């Protein structure tokens, strides 16, 4: 049985094709988010299907997640990214008790039960503080891409204190630090520390190990180490954290199909003319 998990995120759309029988990912890909998530998702799915040689009717079920999950008309079901990231992490690390997920637009602290079920969560809901957007803005201010930003931060000997949680005010602080010829590495490290501190406030001091860190920001060099230092815990690396939500969605799709009478449903992607206007 082949299923698809699609994470319609705020910054990128990620898709995973999952082979339930073999228990493995058979294809994955991503596209930057734009104004038409349905069209992009269709394009992304067609692209990975053509690469794998699979036909659309070989996909048993499609589950979408992420902030744009409800905008994909051809999905069989949606799950929140909280449930999907938990499932994706649990597949890789079945002892995990805490999942920290930091995406482009928000961050989440998720507690798992003994069977990998979500028992509780906290989510930032106000602004870009402690999110990927915060790093993107800071990196852009320093003329770096996000990966370079992380690598530069890892060279810091004396991270700056960035006290502002707000992206706009943090940028003002950065401008002041740049004017004082503060090394870029120290500024970047200060930003990573500020993000980790913000994530720490979500936990309420109740981090139960083992802890997994996932979402796009988990792939930023140095971020996991910084977070581990601030939380004072060991963090389990998640393979391909960018795709964890899509992976969880694909696995949930397979589990749903197995327990549902709808498992013979055939998928039909809408054409442009089918889309609501």
């Amino acid at each position, binding site marked *: 049985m082949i299923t698809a998990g699609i994470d319609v995120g705020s910054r990128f759309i990620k898709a995973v094709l999952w082979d339930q029988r073999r228990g493995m990912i058979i294809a994955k890909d991503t596209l930057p988010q734009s104004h038409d998530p349905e069209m992009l998702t269709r394009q992304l799915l067609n692209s990975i299907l053509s690469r794998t040689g699979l036909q659309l009717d070989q996909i048993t079920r499609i589950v979408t997640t992420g*902030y744009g999950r409800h905008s994909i008309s051809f999905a069989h079901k949606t799950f929140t990214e909280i449930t999907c990231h938990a499932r994706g992490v649990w597949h890789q690390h079945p002892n995990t008790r805490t999942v920290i997920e930091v995406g482009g637009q928000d961050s989440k602290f998720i507690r798992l039960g003994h069977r990998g*079920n*979500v*028992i*509780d*969560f906290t*989510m930032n*809901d106000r602004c870009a503080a402690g999110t990927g957007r915060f790093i993107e803005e800071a990196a852009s201010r320093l003329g770096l891409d996000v990966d370079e930003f992380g690598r530069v931060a890892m060279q810091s000997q004396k991270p700056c204190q960035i006290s502002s949680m707000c992206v706009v005010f943090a940028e003002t602080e950065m401008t002041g630090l740049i004017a004082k010829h503060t090394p870029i590495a120290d500024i970047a490290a200060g930003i990573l520390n500020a993000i980790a501190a913000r994530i720490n406030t979500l936990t*309420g001091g109740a981090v139960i190990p083992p802890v997994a860190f996932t979402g796009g920001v988990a792939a930023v060099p140095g971020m996991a180490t910084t977070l581990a230092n601030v939380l004072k815990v060991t963090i389990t690396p998640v393979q391909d954290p960018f795709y964890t939500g899509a992976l969880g969605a694909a696995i949930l799709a397979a589990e749903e199909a197995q327990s549902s009478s709808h498992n013979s449903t055939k998928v039909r992607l809408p054409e442009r003319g089918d889309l609501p206007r």
Partner: protein
Amino acid sequence: MLVLRIPGASHSAWEGEVIQRFFRESYGIPVLVVEVPTIIDSVEPTLKTQLEALYEIIQDLRF
């Protein structure tokens, strides 16, 4: 448990968190604290995600 806070209507900014911690720690009940109505429209998607996630937790507990 869903704790609804009305922005500006309480003298204690932390009562939601206190209730949340008490029920989480004492009874292991999932607790969501949200402010309604939302102060700005842009937080509505996040609010919906949180409510849906709470529903998914409850569904998982039931089945």
